[in-house]
């Protein structure tokens, strides 16, 4: 019997999903799965294919090749069924300025058979502190985003897709949004969180996909990452002692007598071993998502073709 808990079933499945505009590829051969109940992060710079992926999942665009399904519904041919199960917050949000905040919520919930209006009003009023009687044209960008977030979190759906949900928000509102994402996860909803603020993605995501120039380059399990320690150690003497296998140390980098090691697991055995070897200096820390992101998008990153990925 396996002791590893099985993964929840996949809810969104992309299989070789490709979107091309003539010779230009917005997305190439994206194959990944988003599991039921997880918070899944999409990372990448502008133009890396995050929004294209989301729009393909919502059936707003037809894939050039490959396919995507949500709950088994094909995203293009069954886009309407998909959108019944998904609530989407667009990255670039525009609203009809002639309506009041309440009017927008009524309109948006009316497009979903009137569901979720009470909850949307409650979130907008109590959490987001919005004056729903004001015309939307008098709202700031952040207030409009809060209004849309209130509707998105109120929709009675299984999947929430949030495209840069905190981009226009103040710090306290950002925290509110992260808390709402946690509540959504606790309620069993699946959340796709696309963003540029790595600390937010790191704080709430279970897994993170990194995209570069339309390609999926890495999927990181954030739970595994949170148990990762980085050990910078300098040993005395000419040669380093042998690393015990049971500690599971992995050499990341070596510069002269200094070693950068990766470690996962219990801290005690590691400290006990360090006490027995001639250590001149040691620093133990964690590695944030930024370091991983920089591997693919940092100044030293090269893509598969040996080109600068930001170019």
């Amino acid at each position: 019997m396996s002791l590893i808990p099985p993964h929840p079933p996949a809810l969104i499945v992309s299989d070789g999903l490709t979107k091309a505009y003539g010779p230009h590829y917005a997305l190439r051969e994206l194959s990944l799965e988003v599991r039921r109940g997880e918070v899944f992060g999409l990372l990448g710079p502008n133009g890396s294919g995050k929004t294209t992926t989301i729009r393909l999942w919502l059936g707003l665009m037809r894939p050039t090749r490959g396919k995507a399904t949500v709950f088994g519904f094909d995203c293009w041919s069954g886009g309407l069924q998909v959108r019944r199960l998904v609530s989407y917050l667009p990255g670039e949000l525009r609203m009809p300025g002639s309506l009041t905040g309440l009017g927008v919520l009524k309109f948006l919930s009316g497009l979903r058979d009137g569901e979720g209006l009470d909850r949307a009003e409650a979130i907008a009023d109590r959490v987001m502190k919005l004056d729903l009687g004001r015309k939307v044209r008098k709202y700031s960008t952040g207030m409009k985003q809060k209004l849309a977030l209130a509707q998105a979190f109120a929709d009675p759906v299984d999947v929430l897709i949030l495209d840069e949900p905190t981009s226009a928000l103040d710090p306290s509102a950002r925290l509110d949004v992260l808390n709402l994402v946690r509540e959504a996860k606790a309620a069993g909803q699946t959340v796709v969180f696309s963003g540029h603020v790595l600390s937010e993605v790191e704080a709430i995501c279970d897994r993170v996909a990194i995209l570069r120039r339309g390609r999926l380059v890495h999927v990181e399990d954030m739970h595994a990452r949170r148990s990762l320690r980085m050990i910078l150690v300098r040993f005395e003497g000419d040669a380093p002692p042998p690393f015990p296998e049971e500690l599971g140390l992995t050499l990341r980098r070596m510069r002269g007598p200094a070693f950068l090691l990766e470690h996962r697991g219990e801290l005690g055995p590691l400290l006990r071993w360090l006490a027995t070897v001639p250590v001149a200096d040691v620093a133990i820390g964690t590695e944030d998502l930024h370091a991983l992101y920089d591997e693919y998008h940092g100044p030293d990153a090269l893509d598969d073709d040996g080109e600068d990925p930001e170019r």
Partner: protein
Amino acid sequence: MKPFWTLVRKNLHDARWPLFLSSSLLAFLGWLLVYVASRNETRIRQSLAEGKAGNWIRQMGLEADPPSVEIMMTFWANPPFIMLLVSMFALGRGANAVGAEIERGTLDMVMSRPVSRSAYLGAQVLATILGLLAITGSLAIGTYAATFYNVLKSPPTFGLLLEPAFNLAALAFPMYGYTLLFSSMDIVRWRPLTAGSSLTLAGFISRVISMIPVFKDSWWRPWAEHASVFSLYNPVDAVSGRGHSGQDVAILLGAGAAFIVLAFLAFAHRDLPANA
């Protein structure tokens, strides 16, 4: 069905000011034209009887001693601003339906909800039809109301006035149809609006040229006349029962419907980008 009616309500809300202004203006115009007809009726009848009436009145199909409503209808057809107002509404609605929504970025808000593309466009079409009927109906209402306050030899019934009003609404239907088709394929407002306006203007010029007496015997005159939707708008025929008013309206509605079907097909198969 609720999303569909929510969209219809929203579209009517968006169009409320153009609708209100156009309807008010046309109701007032209807009233004014009855007033003018009332003041000039005797003179026009006398001129027609003596064969001294201007060519334009005869070209509008007036015979000697016409009913009052036929005199009124010459004004519905001849000053272009009645057609202009209705055309502007139709062209604006068509261009706004998709292209402008993508340009503004507001289409995302709707299409990311559980709304089918046919429901979205269907709601646009229904709101426009209701708007066109409201605008042209207000012209009939204004005209009918004015008959109670102005002396006419033979005041028309409201039902009779609805026929040319419907012809006017039908005239705008193909204009809306082809502009909607252009808009359904585009991501900005200006292009479908320019294309729709150019086609409409070309149709109007074609109609005007075909009516110039000096071109009466030209081989291309019938082509120019039939190429224009404006040749199918004839309010005098609509009230007199002469001509092929019913057939003309059917052709206008058929052409509009064909363009709208093409717009549905184009919209159903296209990508919806975030914004332009």
